[in-house]
């Protein structure tokens, strides 16, 4: 008979380590710093493994008149070549709607620069990359739309436009004291996860496939691999322990590489690894959507919004991908924290011959928000007020029923006004405003700017069925616990937080809990780890699983020791059963020997949410996450160079499960948002080729860009009124939009050149070049 493990005895009453509310270290921190954390490309592939690479198109649009792969086939080390006709199953991997061909064959049309034509598998990564260069490809070049304007002009859309409307904006515009109109270009953004796209596929018996892939969406990867291989989903397992960053860029964009590696693995019956070189990764994968915002706004003499007509045109690239939901989310956030008495928000999904844009932290929300913040700043200059006062004047409030969004969701909890008051005070906003005004009067070249911008960000997938999650927990006879759930770890600390939830349920040290790789054979039918929902969904599912086991253990104890309900207690790494106490391990063993199941699945579906898209009305969001940031900047009016001097943030995370991780998310998101607003510029040539395809050309913030003074506060005493996990709030995406305050402060600095009487137009990203142009424009107009 198998001997049961020796376990620690009861008696240790030290505090339980890692409970919710504690700043528990990231579960992989030790492995990160020692280089022991294993990413997909770090896995030692099975002997005989091959390395795949892809051949990419070199025109934005054209018919492939010749795709001659003979030299690729005979190139050194090549073991297999794959083109579209070799695919036994589906050839379109569009995640929601079709439109994303896996590869493009001779005779077919390529529709963006960097589209996959074919793939090879060779003995080494280097040989595979060299082999794809041997292809002879000829095109009949066709006219291509590269810009949003070109797409709009040609009425070219990936999905139908959508409108959200409240009231009659045209009559409200007529009666408004002031009317402004304008347009703004909002730049896109490259995810720039430090770990590029990577997959390792290993054929299994019965024609199946084990897929290690750096993905935020294991189930979708599983489904698509099964479809291209033409096998049922139950023969494909996807496994991901951790990603080296995702940020949305691995929500759908990881699939193609997994599919290609799986097809080559199936074809060769050998393990196949693929990883994209940075330049190809940046060329061939989607980014944050760039947007064009056009608007007419009517407002009162005080600066209160009365009517807003806004057209948000998202540059979707070539296919729908997730663009429907992304443009919807931009529209859902075109109010940000402001009541729009009448509004007509139209969202266009513009098709261009560029790589299909995809999810990126905020998922359209940031673009909607910056569009309305632009308007608020412009209004302030017209009415001659500090932009902060105009913001405050327009916040949602229960007064006069100014509490319902333009899509009909009532704001049940008004957190923003008090949060902003608090931040205004703690950041010393008014005194700094005075000091800056004084500084700008005497400083000839350098000017300072200050801005406070709020956020109100809706939490839930707007596609209702994605708001569900599963978990699987095993308790072993030594009292150690394995934790599986459908969420993926990309650095955000999800595994740590969910482990804290489980530690809390069992009242055991977090070290007792082993976080397992996310696998579709452990937890099936998962949603992507996206929309800031990871902890909300998976934390609840894991709690459900833990509670099931705990209930069984409790019921067993009651029966076994003839106790009453309430006499069994889990505390301090122990189980108390009446007078008796056991270590958690002892008790697990006792339960096992008495034939109690110590394994359970858990499940959660978010309540309350609904949205009628036809009417554009409903409650798409379970709740809102809120925050605000004050940024102070310095600009050089001769060059446009700039620097962020100080940032103060207050963010509402409800009751924090892990303050250190939450602060880390806020700081990181802020800097990422700041990068989006300032230095991160995507530049396409007229030929549709992206020119900024490496970190030498595409500049994300570096360490010196982090402001010397950077204060982050979690809004105290603000538990989520909704029944979320420990009444916490989502934190992944919302603080990214706090970066808008940097852009607003830059405009404020430029506005000082005309004594704040003119509103500088400043498209994003606000590079030194754009800032200098704004300075000169304001100088010329004043």
């Amino acid at each position, binding site marked *: 008979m198998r001997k049961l493990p020796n376990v620690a005895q009861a008696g240790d009453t030290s505090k339980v380590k890692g409970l919710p509310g504690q700043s528990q*270290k*990231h579960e*992989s*921190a030790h*492995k*990160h*710093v*020692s*280089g022991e954390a294993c990413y997909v*490309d770090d896995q*030692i592939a099975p002997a005989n493994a091959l390395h795949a690479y892809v051949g990419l198109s070199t025109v934005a649009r054209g018919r492939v008149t010749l795709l001659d792969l003979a030299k690729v086939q005979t190139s050194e080390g090549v073991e297999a070549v794959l083109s579209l006709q070799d695919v036994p199953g589906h050839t379109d991997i569009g995640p929601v709607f079709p439109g994303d061909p896996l590869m493009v064959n001779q005779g077919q049309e390529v529709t963006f620069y960097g589209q996959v034509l074919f793939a090879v598998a060779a003995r080494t990564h*280097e040989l595979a*990359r*060299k082999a794809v260069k041997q292809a002879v490809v000829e095109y009949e070049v066709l006219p291509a739309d590269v810009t949003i304007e070109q797409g709009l002009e040609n009425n070219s859309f990936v999905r139908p436009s959508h409108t959200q409307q409240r009231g009659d904006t045209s009559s409200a515009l007529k009666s408004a004291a002031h009317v402004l109109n304008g347009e703004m270009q909002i730049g896109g953004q490259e*995810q720039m*996860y*430090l*770990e*590029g796209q990577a997959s390792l596929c290993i054929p299994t018996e019965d024609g199946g496939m084990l897929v290690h892939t750096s993905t935020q969406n294991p189930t979708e990867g599983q489904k698509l691999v099964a479809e291209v291989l033409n096998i049922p989903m139950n023969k494909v397992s996807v496994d991901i322990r*951790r990603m*080296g960053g*995702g940020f949305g860029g691995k929500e759908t964009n990881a699939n193609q590489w997994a599919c290609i590696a799986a097809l080559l693995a199936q074809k060769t019956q050998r393990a196949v690894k693929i990883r994209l*070189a*940075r330049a190809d990764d940046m060329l061939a994968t989607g980014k944050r959507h760039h947007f064009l915002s056009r608007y007419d706004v009517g407002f009162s003499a005080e600066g209160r919004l009365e009517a807003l007509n806004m057209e948000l045109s998202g540059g979707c690239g070539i296919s729908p991908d997730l663009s429907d939901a992304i443009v919807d989310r931009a529209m859902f956030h075109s109010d940000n924290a402001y009541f729009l008495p009448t509004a007509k928000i139209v969202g266009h999904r513009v098709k261009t011959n560029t790589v299909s844009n995809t999810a990126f932290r905020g998922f359209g929300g940031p673009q909607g928000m910056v569009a309305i913040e632009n308007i608020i700043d412009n209004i302030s200059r017209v009415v001659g007020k500090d932009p902060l006062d105009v913001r405050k004047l327009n916040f949602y409030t229960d007064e006069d029923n100014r509490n319902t969004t333009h899509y009909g969701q009532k704001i049940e909890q008004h957190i923003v006004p008090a949060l902003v008051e608090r931040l205004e005070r703690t950041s010393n906003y008014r005194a700094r405003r005075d000091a800056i005004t004084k500084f700008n009067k005497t400083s*000839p*070249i350098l000017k300072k700017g200050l801005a406070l911008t709020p956020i109100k960000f809706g939490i839930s997938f707007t596609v209702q069925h994605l708001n569900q999650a599963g978990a699987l927990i095993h308790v072993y006879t030594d009292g150690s616990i394995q934790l599986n759930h459908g969420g993926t770890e990309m*650095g955000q600390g999800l595994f740590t937080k969910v482990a804290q939830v489980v530690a809390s349920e069992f009242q055991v040290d977090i070290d007792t809990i082993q976080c397992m790789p996310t696998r579709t054979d452990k937890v099936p039918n998962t949603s992507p780890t996206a929309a800031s929902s990871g902890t909300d969904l998976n934390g609840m599912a894991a709690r459900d699983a833990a509670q099931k086991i705990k209930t069984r253990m409790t019921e067993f104890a009651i029966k076994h020791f003839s106790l009453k309900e309430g006499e069994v207690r889990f505390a301090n790494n122990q189980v108390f059963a009446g007078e008796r106490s056991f270590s958690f391990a002892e008790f697990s063993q006792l339960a096992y020997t008495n034939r109690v199941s110590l394994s359970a699945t858990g499940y959660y579906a978010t309540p309350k949410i609904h949205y009628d898209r036809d009417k554009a009305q409903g409650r798409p969001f379970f709740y809102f996450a809120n925050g605000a940031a004050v940024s102070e900047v310095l600009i*050089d009016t*001769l*060059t*446009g*160079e700039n*620097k962020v*001097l100080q940032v103060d943030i207050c963010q509402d995370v409800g009751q924090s499960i892990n303050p*250190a991780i939450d*602060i*880390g998310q806020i*700081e*990181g*998101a802020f*800097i*990422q948002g700041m990068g989006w607003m300032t*230095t991160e*510029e995507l530049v396409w040539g007229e030929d549709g080729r992206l*020119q900024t395809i*490496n*970190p030498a*050309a595409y*500049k*994300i*913030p*570096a*360490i*010196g*860009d982090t402001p010397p003074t*950077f204060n982050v506060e979690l809004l105290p005493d603000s538990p989520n009124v909704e029944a979320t996990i420990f009444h916490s709030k989502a934190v992944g995406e919302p603080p990214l939009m706090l970066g808008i305050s940097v852009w607003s402060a830059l405009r404020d600095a430029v506005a000082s050149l005309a004594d704040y009487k003119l509103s500088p137009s400043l498209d994003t990203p606000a590079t*030194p*070049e754009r800032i*200098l*142009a704004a300075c000169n424009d304001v100088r010329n107009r004043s």
Partner: protein
Amino acid sequence: MIKFLLNQTEHSVSDIDPNITLLDYLREHLHKKGSKEGCASGDCGACTVVLGESDGQTMRYKSINSCITLLASLHGKQLITVEDLKNDEQLHPVQQAMVDCHGSQCGFCTPGFVMSMFAYRKNTQTPTREGINEALGGNLCRCTGYRPIVEAAVQMFEPDAKDQFTETESVTSKKLNQIKLSDSEVALSALGRTFYSPATVTELSSLLINHPHARLIAGGTDLSLEFTQFLRNIDVLIYTGRAEGLDTVIETESQIDIGSAATYSKAKSLLVQYFPDLEELIERLGSRQIRNQGTIGGNVGNASPIGDMPPVLIALGAQLVLRKGDTTRTINVADYFLKYKVTSQQSSEFIERILIPKPKAQENFRVYKISKRMEDDISATCGAFNIEIENGLVKRVAIAYGGMAEIPKRAKHCEKALLNKDWSEHNIQVAMAELAKDFSPISDFRSSAEYRLLVSQNFLQRLFLELNSSHDTLRVSQYA
């Protein structure tokens, strides 16, 4: 054969592609997967490792990008990777500080940060925010926003500086000296390709005569992109980094004499002593890892129109000593650049030294660089100004720009508008207008042509204000 110390263990390499990078060797041959590839172009720092070099008795440590360092250049050095930092299963203080401060999120950039921090710890007495920025400016993190990393970089100074590397320092140094003494022919050959690593300048010179088509490689921070980005191979490489005397930085009575293999890190202090404005430029040129490998000679020799040192050298009236065989000739840096990537250097000729005249008392030197990001970014335009004003009159002026033409070059019209004229606002305006005659820049992803010209003109205004005004600073980069 190439010999180096893999941490403490002597490691010999032969019969391996001489074009292989250190990172590929670590990951694919040694299966050390701690160092990561983020870009394979030296722009993200995820691959950072530390090289230890013996000073005879003591060790000096420097961070480098292993993705653009050729394995073959490691001869006689100690290689320390992230796997080597733990001691008896105990995290190194650098690693512990990162854990304590929540300095990692996804963790992919973390090994690189840890190694840059380790090198900073080894080279620094007291941490400062500026020093941390300079040491870690070449490590990108997309998750944390850097604040906790800065905190960790301060906290890591709390424990004693002594670690396992200090304890073995003299042993390590001795081992390295032995490798040096045992030098026979240091080279790596395979697949019909060879990497030569000559020990003397004479040897280097004759190798170049024998192999006129060879490529010279110094830090390799640019040349390595041929391998990692363009998948090309180079059959004959001649390494300048081991040739004795070629990396010296010497001060004579009248000039600063820099060997062409001297790195930025090595040349910086003397240059800054005479030209304080170079401090900012050098700190914004590449990253610490790049400056630890990249050489001024390389920056000149690869004749890129966007290198930052060439306009500086031109404005300072610097000269190059070119050598072929045993013959040398001296030319002005300004005369070196002919056309896009074409120089007056002849076949088998190489840059031996760079001579910079020391500044005269009346000379004012300024250099201004524009890029989207302050740190580790390539210039949209870079203007260097050397101007002598006496009694309100411009006595001598040299102005050169990079990024404004197919070669780095002087702004002759602009200079003419200033020379022997009053140092006045009016004449500055004239000079600004004249600059448009000197340059017709291009538009690219870094900047439009219009901005390049406009901001280059505005540099003159900044120059005028800086030399005349009493304001603390007129640059955001120096505002505190």
